[in-house]
């Protein structure tokens, strides 16, 4: 490459042409052999390994992912959700909790005693709730129902089964004080003869009481 002298004219045009030529040459790839390129790459790799901290490639990837995740988690962002979707999500959450609660009613343990011996504790259905056996000796009865505040005084809710004159039903009962009685043959009211009485006298016949500890 030659530079223009002061005597050359016009100077600007010559300088521009020279510069263009220089740029063109500098942009052109430097001719090297394959062996030279491989030697340069090997030297770069060796230098990187020698100076890098003691981390594996997996470490590097994990750190990168963790960094991106934490960044994603803490970065505020705008959610675009319709009110209907929100309501549906809230309803689903409430139903989910209710379903989970119902699932927890599975039998979990056995127990052997009760505060009142008139009805027998069979087992515990859920924390606090107890499964109780109610019995009544009525050899001549045709049908017997258990009614009380635990079944909304519904005579159709819990029919007793008879064996050798003894009528029995087993039901779960929630903790608390409960009043109950037996309906014999659809019309006759009989309190549990072995249980404490709650003689409210409001409706002409006494009730029986059972207390289920929590």
């Amino acid at each position: 490459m030659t530079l223009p002298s002061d005597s050359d004219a016009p100077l600007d045009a010559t300088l521009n042409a020279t510069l263009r030529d220089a740029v063109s040459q500098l942009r052109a790839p430097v001719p090297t052999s394959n062996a030279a390129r491989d030697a340069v790459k090997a030297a770069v790799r060796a230098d990187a390994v020698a100076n890098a901290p003691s981390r594996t490639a997996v470490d590097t990837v994990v750190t990168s992912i963790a960094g991106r995740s934490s960044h994603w988690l803490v970065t505020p962002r705008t959610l675009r959700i319709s009110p209907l979707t929100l309501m549906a999500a809230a309803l689903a959450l409430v139903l989910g909790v209710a379903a989970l609660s119902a699932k927890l009613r599975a039998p979990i343990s056995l127990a052997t005693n009760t505060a009142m011996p008139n009805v027998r504790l069979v087992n515990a259905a859920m924390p606090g709730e107890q499964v109780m056996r109610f019995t009544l000796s009525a050899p001549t009865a045709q049908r017997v129902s258990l009614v009380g505040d635990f079944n909304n005084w519904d005579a159709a809710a819990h029919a007793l089964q008879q064996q050798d004159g003894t009528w029995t039903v087993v039901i779960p009962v929630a903790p608390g004080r409960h009043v109950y009685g037996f309906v014999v043959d659809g019309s006759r009211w009989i309190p549990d003869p072995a249980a404490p009485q709650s003689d409210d006298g409001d409706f002409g016949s006494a009730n029986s009481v059972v207390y289920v500890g929590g």
Partner: protein
Amino acid sequence: MPPPPYALRMFLVCLGLCALAATAGAQQSDVTALRDRMDAASYRVMLALVDSARAAGLPTAPLISKAQEGLLKRAAPGAIVAASQGLLTRLRVAREALGLAALPAELEAGASALRAGAVARNLVDLRANRAGQGVTVPLVVFADLLARGVPKDTAARALQAMAAANATDAAFNALRLSIERDISGGMLPATAAGMRYRAMLGRQP
């Protein structure tokens, strides 16, 4: 701390509304069970009683249960309403006697004992003698003894002495059973109660 995003606030509001609706629905279902079986006027009175109890922080289930019991026993609507009003009054008295921390079961047992003839002072004394322990079972036994004819003062004295001696629920129930057996065997209720509680406490009759 910046306020939660709009979407989160909306979600929480929706969640609260759903939970509220579920709770109200559960309560309403109990009351509607009465509506379907009572005349309109009686049902309105029952609704007012239940609202009153709820506002006072008293359990509402006993009132609904009382009405359902009356319906099962084919009582007249007026008798059902009167019985429910009386029960609400006794629940209030029981709460005053047993304290604001009284459990629903204790209030129900207290109301039952009051109906059987106990007075508020009996409940106050029993609570004081059984501090830190529940009084449901003693009150159930109290109501039972009164129903079987044991004089109020005798029953109260027996139960107070048992409570002061830190008797367990099982001991209260054993007392009830032994008195019941004696009465069934022909002994006077007052004699049976006096003798049995002294025996359980190791005293001479």
